[in-house]
């Protein structure tokens, strides 16, 4: 009988924490935008977006280069190395751009968000804000959520663009695929609405999920050093799993049947 009780308890626990997460998000986002908060959001875009730029650009470059190298060795066997361009571009725009950006973002920025907000909670900065009649949801949480949602699609676009240039670097400049066919077959295959816009939509969904998990885990962390370390780990694990799972669902919806 005891395991039934345990199951029930953990189910209730999950539902409660989901409810708390939802309340946190609505409390943070359903508020009139203030000029002061725009400034704060800008500051957070710097922390979450600009400081992630380097890792995103470097990984984009290398992933594009590796894909061109691998794709070339396979395609050249069929004499179809002209299709290297669309292969690199489509896989970057549709899958790797949004997904790898989200994974890196979870590791680079999500964990930092969790640790920051968790520590604010542990050192009772959040309670102090409340004592001063400043809503921590609007002052601390909202700018970070918006910054995450704004930054990640931008990072994903930069990732894809740099990856395609990296593919060009290896495929054309090193392995000798014709530059004209790299670009022109890519242009003939890639569609703006179907590929680029869907990739951006994907990365907006990932951005919401990753920032939400990161901030809620920090906001809901047990305010001890152990609790914060656990929350940070959970952020990375949960957001990575959520991104990969959601990616399958979104891909099936966007590209699955027609």
């Amino acid at each position, binding site marked *: 009988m005891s395991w039934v009780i345990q199951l029930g308890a953990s189910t209730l626990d999950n539902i409660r924490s989901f409810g708390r997460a939802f309340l946190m998000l609505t409390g943070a986002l359903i508020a009139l935008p203030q000029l002061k908060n725009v*400034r704060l959001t*800008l*500051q957070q*875009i*710097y922390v979450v*977006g*600009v400081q992630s*730029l380097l890792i995103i650009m470097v990984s984009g470059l290398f992933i594009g280069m590796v894909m061109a190298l691998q794709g070339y060795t396979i395609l050249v066997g*069929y004499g*179809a190395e002209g299709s290297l361009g669309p292969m690199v*571009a489509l896989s970057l*725009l549709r899958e790797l751009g949004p997904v790898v950006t989200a994974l890196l973002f979870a590791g680079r920025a999500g964990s930092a968000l969790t640790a920051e907000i968790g520590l604010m909670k542990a050192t009772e900065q959040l309670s102090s804000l409340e004592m001063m009649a400043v809503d921590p949801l609007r002052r601390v949480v909202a700018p970070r959520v918006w910054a995450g949602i704004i*930054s990640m699609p*931008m990072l994903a*676009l*930069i990732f*894809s*663009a*740099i990856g*395609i*240039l990296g593919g060009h670097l290896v495929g054309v400049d090193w392995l000798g695929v014709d530059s004209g066919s790299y*670009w022109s077959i*890519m*242009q*003939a*295959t*890639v*569609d*703006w609405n179907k*590929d*680029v816009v869907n990739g951006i939509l994907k990365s907006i969904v990932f951005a919401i999920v990753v920032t939400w998990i990161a901030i809620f885990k920090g906001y809901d962390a047990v305010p001890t050093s152990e609790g914060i370390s656990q929350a940070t780990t959970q952020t990375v694990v949960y957001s990575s799993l959520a991104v990969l799972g959601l990616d399958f669902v979104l891909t099936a919806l966007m590209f699955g049947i027609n």
Partner: protein
Amino acid sequence: MNTRKTELMVGFFVILTVAATLLLAMKVVNQGFSNNESSYTLYAKFDNIGGLKTRSAVKVGGVTVGRVESIYLDPEDFNPVVVLSVSQQYDNFPDTSSVAILTSGLLGEQYIGFQPGFAFDDFVTLADGDYIQDTKSALVLEDLIGQFLFSRDSE
């Protein structure tokens, strides 16, 4: 971190994003014949369309003048009908024009090769909704091999 430097860096971030989007929009994405351009519709009935797909190109001498809008089966004689959407820019093809389903390269995509007919003094141009009478179907490799074997057998 002072505010001005932050704002500067965020500005650079935005510029970089715009540059990436421009690269994708200008160099990566298909910017040829799009549906926004004004176009007119032609129909062509084939026996076999092979691997032709919607959005395949319609080419005159290698120049893309339109796209395949849709493909459906005529419910009466069970022949596939291909709906072509041709740019309004090219609106004076004679009605003696013919279309064939061709393949680019050995393993490439299939497209519609449009062969304009002779323009006589009093020729009639193809207009919106017209059927193109003269069509050549796609070559199906199996049929070709079958014919070859059959002709060898009969020798």
